[in-house]
C-alpha cells in the first residue's frame, strides 16, 4: 500500500466513525496537536470528532535528507474524538486492519507514555503503540489543554505516517517510500529536507528570528486584548516555530530556553481561556445535538 492509499484509507475509515475530515492548518507547526482544530476544539464541553493529515516541522530533527529516518518535516495522521469513545482502542485496531495489518499476525502493544507539550500547557496519559517493537502511534487522553482541565476528555490518536509506511512497504529508507504510482517520498520531499535543514542550521538569521519572536508575541497579546482568539493563536504558533528554529541553531541557552517556553505557554493559556469564554458566551452552540451525537 502506498502512502497516498494509506491516507485515503484512514480518511475513509475515520469518516465512517463520524469524524469530520479537515485539512492541515496553514501555519507552521511542530505537531498536529497544535492545529487549532485540536488545540482549541478540545477545550470545553462541546463534542468534537475530526481527522486530518498534518505536516509537522521539527527543525532540530533536520538531517539534510541524509538520514534514513530523521526528518525536518514528517506527516502525522491526527484523530481527535471528544468525549473519548468507550471502545476507542478497538476502533483504532480496526483502522490498522484497514491498512493491512492483522494484529494477530504481529506483536501489538500499548506501552505507557505520558505526553506533555510544555508550550501548550497541555498534558495527557496514554500509550505509544508498538508494532513489532516499532512505535507507530501516539495514543493520548488529554487531561489538560492550555492549562484547563479536560472535561469531557478528548482522545488524540496520532499515526506517524512515515514510520507506518516504512513498515507496510518494508523500506529501510524513508526516501524510498512510494507516495503513489512510482513517485517516491524522495521525489516529493528530498529537496525540501535538504534546503530546510541547510536553512535551519546554517542560513537562518538568528537576529531576525529573535526580533520576529518578540514581534509575534506582542501581536498575539494585542489581538487577544481585542477579543480575537483565532488570529491571536496564529501568532502563538508562529512564536513556537520561530523558537524551534532558534533552538535548532543552538541560539538559545538552556537558561533562556525555559524562559522562551514559558512565554509561549502563557500565550497558549490565554488563548485557551479566551476561547472557552467566547464559546461559553455563545452558549456552547455545538452542545445542541447532545444525546444523538455522543460517542458513548
Amino acid at each position: 500500500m502506498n502512502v497516498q492509499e494509506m491516507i485515503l484509507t484512514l480518511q475513509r475509515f475515520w469518516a465512517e466513525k463520524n469524524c469530520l475530515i479537515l485539512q492541515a492548518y496553514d501555519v507552521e507547526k511542530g505537531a498536529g496537536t497544535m492545529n487549532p482544530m485540536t488545540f482549541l476544539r478540545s477545550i470545553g464541553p462541546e463534542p468534537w470528532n475530526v481527522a486530518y493529515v498534518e505536516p509537522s516541522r521539527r527543525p532540530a530533527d533536520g538531517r539534510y535528507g541524509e538520514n534514513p529516518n530523521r526528518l525536518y518535516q514528517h506527516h502525522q495522521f491526527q484523530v481527535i474524538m471528544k468525549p473519548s469513545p468507550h471502545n476507542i482502542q478497538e476502533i483504532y485496531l480496526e483502522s490498522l486492519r484497514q491498512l493491512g495489518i492483522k494484529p494477530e499476525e504481529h506483536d501489538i502493544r500499548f506501552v505507557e507514555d505520558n505526553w506533555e507539550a510544555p508550550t501548550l500547557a497541555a498534558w495527557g496519559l496514554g500509550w505509544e503503540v508498538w508494532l513489532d517493537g516499532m512505535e507507530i502511534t501516539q495514543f493520548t487522553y488529554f487531561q489538560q489543554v492550555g492549562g484547563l482541565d479536560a472535561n469531557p476528555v478528548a482522545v488524540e490518536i496520532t499515526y506517524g505516517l512515515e514510520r507506518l509506511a516504512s513498515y507496510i512497504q518494508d523500506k529501510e529508507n524513508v526516501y524510498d517510500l512510494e507516495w503513489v504510482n512510482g513517485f517516491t517520498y524522495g521525489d516529493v520531499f528530498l529537496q525540501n529536507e535538504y534546503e530546510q535543514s541547510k536553512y535551519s542550521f546554517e542560513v537562518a538569521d538568528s537576529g531576525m528570528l529573535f526580533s520576529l519572536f518578540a514581534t509575534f508575541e506582542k501581536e498575539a497579546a494585542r489581538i487577544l486584548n481585542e477579543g480575537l482568539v483565532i488570529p491571536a493563536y496564529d501568532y502563538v504558533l508562529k512564536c513556537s516555530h520561530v523558537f524551534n528554529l532558534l533552538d535548532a541553531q543552538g541560539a538559545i541557552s538552556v537558561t533562556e530556553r525555559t524562559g522562551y517556553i514559558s512565554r509561549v505557554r502563557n500565550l497558549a493559556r490565554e488563548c485557551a481561556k479566551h476561547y472557552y469564554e467566547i464559546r461559553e458566551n455563545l452558549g456552547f452552540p455545538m452542545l445542541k445535538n447532545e444525546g444523538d451525537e455522543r460517542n458513548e
Partner: protein
Amino acid sequence: MNKHTFLLEIGLEEMPARFVSASIRQLTAKVDSWLHDHQLAFESIHAYATPRRLAVLVKGLAEKQGDKEEEVRGPAKKIALDQEGNWTKAAQGFSRGQGVDVADLYFQEIKGEEYVFVKKFTEGRQTTALLPEIKEVVTGLQFPKNMKWGSHQLRYVRPIKWIVAMFGKDVIPFEITGVETAVRTLGHRFLGKQIELAHADDYAEALLREFVLPDPEERKAAIRSQIQHIADAEGWNIPIDEGLLEEVTNLVEYPTALYGQFDERFLNVPEDVLITSMREHQRYFPVKDKAGNLLPYFVTVRNGDHRHLENVQKGNEKVLRARLADAEFFYHEDLKQPLENGLKRLETIVYHEELGSIGDKVRRIKELAQQLGELAGLPNEQLEYVRRAAELCKADLVTQMVYEFPELEGKMGEEYARKSGEAPEVATAIYEHYLPKQSGDPVPATDIGAVVSIADKLDTVVSSFGIGQIPTGSQDPHGLRRQAAGIVQIFLDRNWKVDMLKVVDQAIKLCEKKGLLKRGQEDIRNDLVEFLKLRIKNLLQERGVQYDVIDAVLNTDIGNVQALVQKAQFLMERHSEEEFKHAVEAFSRVTNIAKKTSDPSRAVSEALLQKKEERELQRVTEEISGVMPELLTKGEIAAAYEELKRLTPVIHDYFDNIMVMAEDAEVKANRLAQMTETSRLILVFADFQAIVFHSEVESS
C-alpha cells in the same frame, strides 16, 4: 455453613507495566480487610494480574456473616423492679430498646449487685447483600498517576472496560463509570474471545483457553524458562535482569519468547550503548556467549503465541537496526573531537537557577576534590588525576550520545576519555564519580573516583541545603537522600582517616566563598549533620544493628563513619554480656548526674578534690583521655573500650563513698565539674544511657 468462590476482576485498558505489581498487592490487601471489616469468613485469596486486568479470587467465602448472640446489661435490679416486684418504666424502656419482651429479661449478679440482662440475637447478613458494597474497594484503589476519560469524573489508572463480580454462579451487581458488573470477561486482545463464566472457580482455566495466563508468577516463570530454552538450544548465555523480567511479565498476557539478530559491525559500538538500546528502549534481553562477550542477537517476548513469529522477528530487527545505526552515528560524531572540547558548552547549561551553570559546579567539584584528596593524603601524582577527573567529570553531558541516552552519563565520559588519550585512572574516575547511583550499587573502587564522587555529591547536598532546599517527607526532587547515603557509604569504604564533618565544613565554606548560601552557616551545618545522621542510621539498620545501639553511637561525633560503624558492631557483640551491663551502669550514673551541673564549662580544681576516690577518678580519667580518642581514630575499637572500661571499678568505688551533692557549694560544684569531664570522655565512645537491657529488645 455454605461457602462459595467470589471473583472480582477489573478489566482495564493497558495499565502501565510498572504499576501492575503494586496495584494487585493493594487490591488483594483491600479486599482482605474489607471482608474482615464485614465479618465475612473466607479460606484464601488468590491474586491475578495482567496489563489488562486486576483480579482476586476469594475461595471458601461464607454465604452469610456469622450469627451473633450477645448478653446486654440493663439497669440494676433495684431500679428495674418496683416495691411490688413489677417492672418499672426503666426496665420496660430497656426491653423495648433491645427489641425483646419484658418476659425475656433475667437477672445476673455482677460484683455483688444484681442487674437486668437480655440475650440478644443478631442474625448475620447474607454475603450477596453485602458484596455490592465492595465497589468502594474498586473505586478506592490508589495509583501513582491517574486519569479521566470520556465524560466520567472518576480518576483511575486507565479507563475501566469491564468488571466481573460473581459469587459462585451469581453476578454481584454494581456499576462504575457506566460499566455494569457481569459474569463476562475478555480473553487475549487478539487471540482470545469473550468468555461467559459459568462459575467463579472457572476463572483461571477459562482465561488460559483464551490465551491469557492470569497468574503473574506463572507468566514470569514461563518467560524465564522460554528464554533458558533458547539459550540452551543456541549455546548462549542470556543474563536475566530481574527488573526487565518483571516489566516484560507485566507487558504481556500470553508470552512467547523469540530471538532476532543484528549486524556484527554494530559490535564496534560500546557494549553499554548496545545494551541500553536493547534493554531500556526495546525491552530486549541482550545475548552473550559462554565467555560473557556480547553477541549480535537479542531476545524479545511477544504478547501472543508462536504463529507468525517471523513477522515479529523481522519487525523488531528492523527497529533495532535503525536504533543502532543512530547510536553508531552519534558515537563516531562524538569521537571527532576530544572530550575536553565539551567543557566550554557546560558554561551554558544551567545546573540550578540559584546555583549557576554546570561549569560553575565543575569548578566547585574540582576545588573540593583537591582539598579532600589532600586530607586523604593522596600522593601528588594522584592529586593531579583527581583534578583532571573532576574537570572532565560532566563533559559527556554535551555529547550526542548522552543527549540521546541520558542513562549513559559517566559511561560515555569514561569511554570518550580513554579514546581522547586521558590517563586510564582519570577515565575510570569519571565513570566512578556517579557511584553509587542507587542503593545496592557498588561504591567507587579507586581513591580518585571516590574523591571526585564525594566532592560532586557533597556539593549537590550542601549547595541545596544552602538555598533552603531540604528534602521533606516524600519530597526529594534532587535525590539528596541518595546522594548523602552515597557519601556515607564511600567514607565507610575508604581507609582515609578523614573527618567527614571537616569535609562538610570545607564544602560549606566553598559555597559561601562563591556567594551561594542563603542561610546561616551554623544552621546549614546543623541541618546537614542531622541529615547525615539519618543516613548512617539507615545504614546501621540495614546491617542489623539494634535501635538502642544505633542511638548510643549516633549521639557521639559522627565525623569518623568507619569508627562509628565499628563501635556499633562492637557494642552489638558485647550487648548480652553481664560485665558490659555492669560497665554501662557505671557510665550511665556519671552521665546522668553530670546533667545536673549548672556550669558545664567549669574546670575541675585539683585542690578541691578531698577524697582518694575523687583523686583516683581524676587520675584514671586523665590517663584514658590521653589514649582512647587516638585508638578510636585508628579504628582500634576493642582496645579503646578496654581503656574506657578501666573506669568501671573506679566509678563504682566513687559512688560507694562519695556524695556528689555535697553540703559545701564549692565542693559540690567541683564534683559536678568532675562528673562532666568524665562524662565527656565516655560520650566520645558512646551514649551508654541509650542502651536498653530488656530481654525483649527487638533487633531490626
